[in-house]
Protein backbone atom coordinates (compact mmCIF):
# COMPACT_ATOMS: atom_id res chain seq x y z
CA UNK A 1 0.00 0.00 0.00
CA UNK A 2 1.24 3.45 -0.75
CA UNK A 3 -0.35 4.85 2.37
CA UNK A 4 1.73 4.18 5.47
CA UNK A 5 0.58 4.52 9.03
CA UNK A 6 3.25 5.69 11.40
CA UNK A 7 3.35 2.29 13.08
CA UNK A 8 4.36 0.59 9.85
CA UNK A 9 7.58 2.58 9.50
CA UNK A 10 10.57 1.21 11.38
CA UNK A 11 11.18 3.07 14.61
CA UNK A 12 13.90 5.66 14.48
CA UNK A 13 13.76 6.07 10.72
CA UNK A 14 14.20 9.71 9.88
CA UNK A 15 12.74 10.87 6.64
CA UNK A 16 15.23 12.65 4.41
CA UNK A 17 12.52 13.49 1.91
CA UNK A 18 10.96 16.93 2.03
CA UNK A 19 8.16 17.09 4.63
CA UNK A 20 4.78 16.30 3.10
CA UNK A 21 1.33 16.95 4.46
CA UNK A 22 0.39 13.34 3.87
CA UNK A 23 -0.13 12.89 7.60
CA UNK A 24 -2.93 15.46 7.61
CA UNK A 25 -4.82 13.68 4.86
CA UNK A 26 -4.24 10.35 6.52
CA UNK A 27 -5.69 11.74 9.74
CA UNK A 28 -8.84 12.84 7.89
CA UNK A 29 -9.01 9.42 6.25
CA UNK A 30 -8.69 7.72 9.60
CA UNK A 31 -11.33 9.83 11.32
CA UNK A 32 -13.67 9.34 8.38
CA UNK A 33 -13.11 5.62 8.55
CA UNK A 34 -14.09 5.45 12.19
CA UNK A 35 -17.23 7.52 11.59
CA UNK A 36 -18.11 5.43 8.56
CA UNK A 37 -17.57 2.16 10.40
CA UNK A 38 -19.53 3.06 13.53
CA UNK A 39 -22.33 5.30 12.27
CA UNK A 40 -23.12 4.37 8.68
CA UNK A 41 -24.25 0.73 8.89
CA UNK A 42 -27.30 1.32 11.08
CA UNK A 43 -28.54 4.32 9.13
CA UNK A 44 -27.98 2.70 5.76
CA UNK A 45 -29.73 -0.44 6.97
CA UNK A 46 -32.74 1.47 8.27
CA UNK A 47 -33.24 4.07 5.55
CA UNK A 48 -31.90 1.98 2.68
CA UNK A 49 -33.41 -1.42 3.41
CA UNK A 50 -35.63 -1.77 6.49
CA UNK A 51 -37.94 1.19 5.91
CA UNK A 52 -38.36 0.92 2.12
CA UNK A 53 -38.95 -2.84 2.33
CA UNK A 54 -41.39 -2.50 5.21
CA UNK A 55 -39.38 -4.60 7.67
CA UNK A 56 -39.74 -1.89 10.28
CA UNK A 57 -42.31 0.91 10.66
CA UNK A 58 -41.19 4.04 8.88
CA UNK A 59 -40.87 7.14 11.07
CA UNK A 60 -43.12 10.02 10.08
CA UNK A 61 -41.82 13.19 8.42
CA UNK A 62 -42.53 15.20 11.58
CA UNK A 63 -40.53 12.79 13.71
CA UNK A 64 -37.53 12.78 11.38
CA UNK A 65 -37.39 16.52 10.89
CA UNK A 66 -37.81 17.14 14.62
CA UNK A 67 -34.85 14.84 15.19
CA UNK A 68 -32.80 16.53 12.48
CA UNK A 69 -33.49 20.02 13.81
CA UNK A 70 -32.02 19.46 17.28
CA UNK A 71 -28.55 21.08 17.58
CA UNK A 72 -26.81 17.85 18.56
CA UNK A 73 -28.33 16.07 15.60
CA UNK A 74 -27.14 18.79 13.24
CA UNK A 75 -23.58 18.38 14.46
CA UNK A 76 -23.93 14.60 14.29
CA UNK A 77 -25.25 14.74 10.73
CA UNK A 78 -22.55 17.17 9.67
CA UNK A 79 -19.83 14.87 10.99
CA UNK A 80 -21.62 11.91 9.39
CA UNK A 81 -21.71 13.60 5.99
CA UNK A 82 -18.31 15.28 6.02
CA UNK A 83 -15.69 12.96 7.45
CA UNK A 84 -16.63 9.80 5.51
CA UNK A 85 -16.32 11.85 2.32
CA UNK A 86 -12.71 12.60 3.17
CA UNK A 87 -12.25 8.94 3.93
CA UNK A 88 -13.56 8.14 0.45
CA UNK A 89 -11.41 10.86 -1.12
CA UNK A 90 -8.17 9.52 0.33
CA UNK A 91 -8.97 5.87 -0.33
CA UNK A 92 -10.24 6.42 -3.85
CA UNK A 93 -7.21 8.51 -4.74
CA UNK A 94 -4.88 5.67 -3.76
CA UNK A 95 -7.09 3.07 -5.39
CA UNK A 96 -6.62 4.94 -8.65
CA UNK A 97 -2.85 5.12 -8.07
CA UNK A 98 -2.30 1.56 -6.91
CA UNK A 99 -5.28 -0.33 -8.27
CA UNK A 100 -5.61 1.06 -11.74
CA UNK A 101 -2.02 2.36 -12.06
CA UNK A 102 -3.24 5.77 -13.21
CA UNK A 103 -0.27 7.63 -11.82
CA UNK A 104 0.01 10.12 -14.65
CA UNK A 105 -3.19 11.93 -13.62
CA UNK A 106 -2.02 12.84 -10.11
CA UNK A 107 -3.20 16.45 -9.94
CA UNK A 108 -6.55 15.75 -11.56
CA UNK A 109 -7.27 12.87 -9.21
CA UNK A 110 -6.22 14.88 -6.19
CA UNK A 111 -8.49 17.78 -7.15
CA UNK A 112 -11.41 15.49 -7.97
CA UNK A 113 -11.21 13.52 -4.74
CA UNK A 114 -10.54 16.18 -2.13
CA UNK A 115 -12.43 18.82 -4.06
CA UNK A 116 -15.43 16.52 -4.16
CA UNK A 117 -15.17 15.95 -0.43
CA UNK A 118 -15.01 19.69 0.18
CA UNK A 119 -18.06 20.29 -2.00
CA UNK A 120 -20.02 17.63 -0.14
CA UNK A 121 -18.98 19.13 3.16
CA UNK A 122 -20.09 22.59 2.05
CA UNK A 123 -23.44 21.24 0.82
CA UNK A 124 -23.98 19.41 4.12
CA UNK A 125 -23.18 22.57 6.07
CA UNK A 126 -25.67 24.53 3.98
CA UNK A 127 -28.43 21.94 4.35
CA UNK A 128 -27.95 21.54 8.07
CA UNK A 129 -27.91 25.28 8.57
CA UNK A 130 -31.18 25.69 6.70
CA UNK A 131 -33.09 22.67 7.99
Amino acid sequence: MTEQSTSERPKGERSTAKPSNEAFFWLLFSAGGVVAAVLIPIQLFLFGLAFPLGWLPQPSYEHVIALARSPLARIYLFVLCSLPLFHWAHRFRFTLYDGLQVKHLNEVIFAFCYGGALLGTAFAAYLLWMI
Partner: protein
Amino acid sequence: MTDQIMTDRIMTDQIMTDQMMTDQAARTEFHPRWYRERVSTWWWLGEWHYLKFILREVSSLSVAWFVGLTLFQLQALLHGPVAYARFSARLQSPVMIAFNLIAFCFVMFHAITWFNLAPRAMPVRIGGKRVPEFLVAAPNYALWIIVSAFVGWLLLRTP
Protein backbone atom coordinates in the same frame (compact mmCIF):
# COMPACT_ATOMS: atom_id res chain seq x y z
CA MET B 1 64.70 -1.04 -4.34
CA THR B 2 65.13 2.54 -3.57
CA ASP B 3 62.34 4.46 -1.89
CA GLN B 4 61.94 6.60 -4.99
CA ILE B 5 61.27 3.63 -7.28
CA MET B 6 58.81 2.15 -4.79
CA THR B 7 56.97 5.44 -4.54
CA ASP B 8 56.95 5.70 -8.32
CA ARG B 9 55.49 2.20 -8.65
CA ILE B 10 52.82 2.84 -6.02
CA MET B 11 51.92 6.10 -7.69
CA THR B 12 51.73 4.39 -11.09
CA ASP B 13 49.57 1.61 -9.63
CA GLN B 14 47.24 4.21 -8.21
CA ILE B 15 47.02 6.10 -11.48
CA MET B 16 46.36 2.87 -13.36
CA THR B 17 43.63 1.86 -10.90
CA ASP B 18 42.05 5.28 -11.17
CA GLN B 19 42.10 4.99 -14.95
CA MET B 20 40.52 1.52 -14.88
CA MET B 21 37.83 2.66 -12.47
CA THR B 22 37.08 5.65 -14.64
CA ASP B 23 36.89 3.36 -17.65
CA GLN B 24 34.42 1.16 -15.81
CA ALA B 25 32.41 4.22 -14.82
CA ALA B 26 32.38 5.33 -18.42
CA ARG B 27 31.21 1.89 -19.50
CA THR B 28 28.37 1.85 -16.93
CA GLU B 29 26.56 4.57 -18.85
CA PHE B 30 25.87 2.12 -21.62
CA HIS B 31 24.91 -0.79 -19.38
CA PRO B 32 21.36 -1.85 -20.19
CA ARG B 33 18.66 -1.09 -17.58
CA TRP B 34 17.58 -3.96 -15.37
CA TYR B 35 14.41 -5.58 -16.68
CA ARG B 36 11.31 -4.75 -14.60
CA GLU B 37 8.04 -6.23 -15.61
CA ARG B 38 5.37 -3.65 -16.16
CA VAL B 39 2.63 -4.11 -13.60
CA SER B 40 -0.70 -4.93 -15.22
CA THR B 41 -3.83 -2.98 -14.35
CA TRP B 42 -5.35 -6.30 -13.24
CA TRP B 43 -2.60 -7.25 -10.82
CA TRP B 44 -5.11 -7.46 -8.00
CA LEU B 45 -6.91 -10.44 -9.48
CA GLY B 46 -3.85 -12.58 -8.93
CA GLU B 47 -4.40 -13.48 -5.26
CA TRP B 48 -7.23 -13.44 -2.74
CA HIS B 49 -5.25 -11.10 -0.46
CA TYR B 50 -4.88 -8.61 -3.29
CA LEU B 51 -8.58 -8.89 -4.11
CA LYS B 52 -9.50 -8.40 -0.44
CA PHE B 53 -7.38 -5.27 -0.38
CA ILE B 54 -9.06 -3.85 -3.47
CA LEU B 55 -12.52 -4.75 -2.13
CA ARG B 56 -11.72 -2.87 1.03
CA GLU B 57 -10.65 0.15 -0.97
CA VAL B 58 -13.75 -0.07 -3.18
CA SER B 59 -15.90 -0.03 -0.03
CA SER B 60 -15.08 3.66 0.12
CA LEU B 61 -17.40 4.11 -2.88
CA SER B 62 -20.29 2.74 -0.83
CA VAL B 63 -19.40 5.17 1.93
CA ALA B 64 -19.58 8.03 -0.57
CA TRP B 65 -22.87 6.60 -1.89
CA PHE B 66 -24.36 6.70 1.60
CA VAL B 67 -23.26 10.31 2.13
CA GLY B 68 -24.79 11.29 -1.21
CA LEU B 69 -28.00 9.52 -0.25
CA THR B 70 -28.10 11.26 3.12
CA LEU B 71 -27.47 14.67 1.54
CA PHE B 72 -30.39 14.14 -0.83
CA GLN B 73 -32.47 12.95 2.10
CA LEU B 74 -31.66 16.10 4.06
CA GLN B 75 -32.51 18.19 1.02
CA ALA B 76 -35.86 16.43 0.73
CA LEU B 77 -36.50 17.04 4.41
CA LEU B 78 -35.74 20.70 3.89
CA HIS B 79 -38.23 20.94 1.02
CA GLY B 80 -41.17 19.65 3.04
CA PRO B 81 -43.28 16.53 3.59
CA VAL B 82 -44.29 16.11 -0.04
CA ALA B 83 -40.68 16.13 -1.24
CA TYR B 84 -39.71 13.76 1.55
CA ALA B 85 -42.53 11.38 0.65
CA ARG B 86 -41.33 11.43 -2.97
CA PHE B 87 -37.78 10.70 -1.80
CA SER B 88 -38.98 7.78 0.34
CA ALA B 89 -40.95 6.40 -2.58
CA ARG B 90 -37.87 6.58 -4.80
CA LEU B 91 -35.96 4.60 -2.21
CA GLN B 92 -38.42 1.74 -2.69
CA SER B 93 -37.61 1.21 -6.36
CA PRO B 94 -35.79 -2.09 -7.12
CA VAL B 95 -32.75 -0.26 -8.49
CA MET B 96 -32.31 1.72 -5.31
CA ILE B 97 -32.88 -1.33 -3.13
CA ALA B 98 -30.24 -3.20 -5.12
CA PHE B 99 -27.73 -0.36 -4.84
CA ASN B 100 -28.42 0.05 -1.14
CA LEU B 101 -28.08 -3.67 -0.52
CA ILE B 102 -24.71 -3.77 -2.26
CA ALA B 103 -23.64 -0.60 -0.46
CA PHE B 104 -24.72 -2.06 2.87
CA CYS B 105 -22.65 -5.21 2.29
CA PHE B 106 -19.61 -3.13 1.42
CA VAL B 107 -20.09 -0.83 4.42
CA MET B 108 -20.31 -3.87 6.72
CA PHE B 109 -17.14 -5.22 5.11
CA HIS B 110 -15.47 -1.87 5.76
CA ALA B 111 -16.61 -1.79 9.39
CA ILE B 112 -15.49 -5.32 10.20
CA THR B 113 -12.10 -5.03 8.48
CA TRP B 114 -11.62 -1.62 10.09
CA PHE B 115 -12.26 -2.82 13.62
CA ASN B 116 -10.09 -5.87 13.06
CA LEU B 117 -7.24 -3.62 11.90
CA ALA B 118 -7.53 -1.23 14.86
CA PRO B 119 -5.19 -3.22 17.12
CA ARG B 120 -2.58 -3.25 14.35
CA ALA B 121 -2.83 0.45 13.54
CA MET B 122 -2.62 1.35 17.19
CA PRO B 123 -0.64 -1.27 19.13
CA VAL B 124 -1.65 -0.95 22.76
CA ARG B 125 0.91 -1.75 25.40
CA ILE B 126 0.32 -2.08 29.10
CA GLY B 127 3.46 -2.28 31.20
CA GLY B 128 5.54 -3.04 28.11
CA LYS B 129 3.46 -6.04 27.03
CA ARG B 130 1.29 -6.03 23.95
CA VAL B 131 -2.42 -6.24 24.73
CA PRO B 132 -3.97 -9.14 22.74
CA GLU B 133 -5.64 -7.98 19.52
CA PHE B 134 -9.08 -9.22 20.51
CA LEU B 135 -9.13 -7.01 23.59
CA VAL B 136 -8.39 -3.92 21.50
CA ALA B 137 -10.89 -4.75 18.79
CA ALA B 138 -13.72 -5.71 21.18
CA PRO B 139 -14.40 -2.21 22.60
CA ASN B 140 -14.73 -0.93 19.03
CA TYR B 141 -17.36 -3.54 18.30
CA ALA B 142 -19.10 -2.76 21.59
CA LEU B 143 -19.20 0.95 20.77
CA TRP B 144 -20.55 0.11 17.32
CA ILE B 145 -23.38 -1.98 18.72
CA ILE B 146 -24.29 0.51 21.44
CA VAL B 147 -24.35 3.51 19.11
CA SER B 148 -26.31 1.60 16.47
CA ALA B 149 -28.88 0.54 19.05
CA PHE B 150 -29.22 4.13 20.23
CA VAL B 151 -29.69 5.52 16.73
CA GLY B 152 -32.17 2.78 15.95
CA TRP B 153 -34.10 3.55 19.11
CA LEU B 154 -34.17 7.27 18.27
CA LEU B 155 -35.59 6.61 14.83
CA LEU B 156 -38.01 3.84 15.71
CA ARG B 157 -39.65 5.17 18.86
CA THR B 158 -43.07 6.71 18.42
CA PRO B 159 -43.09 9.96 20.43
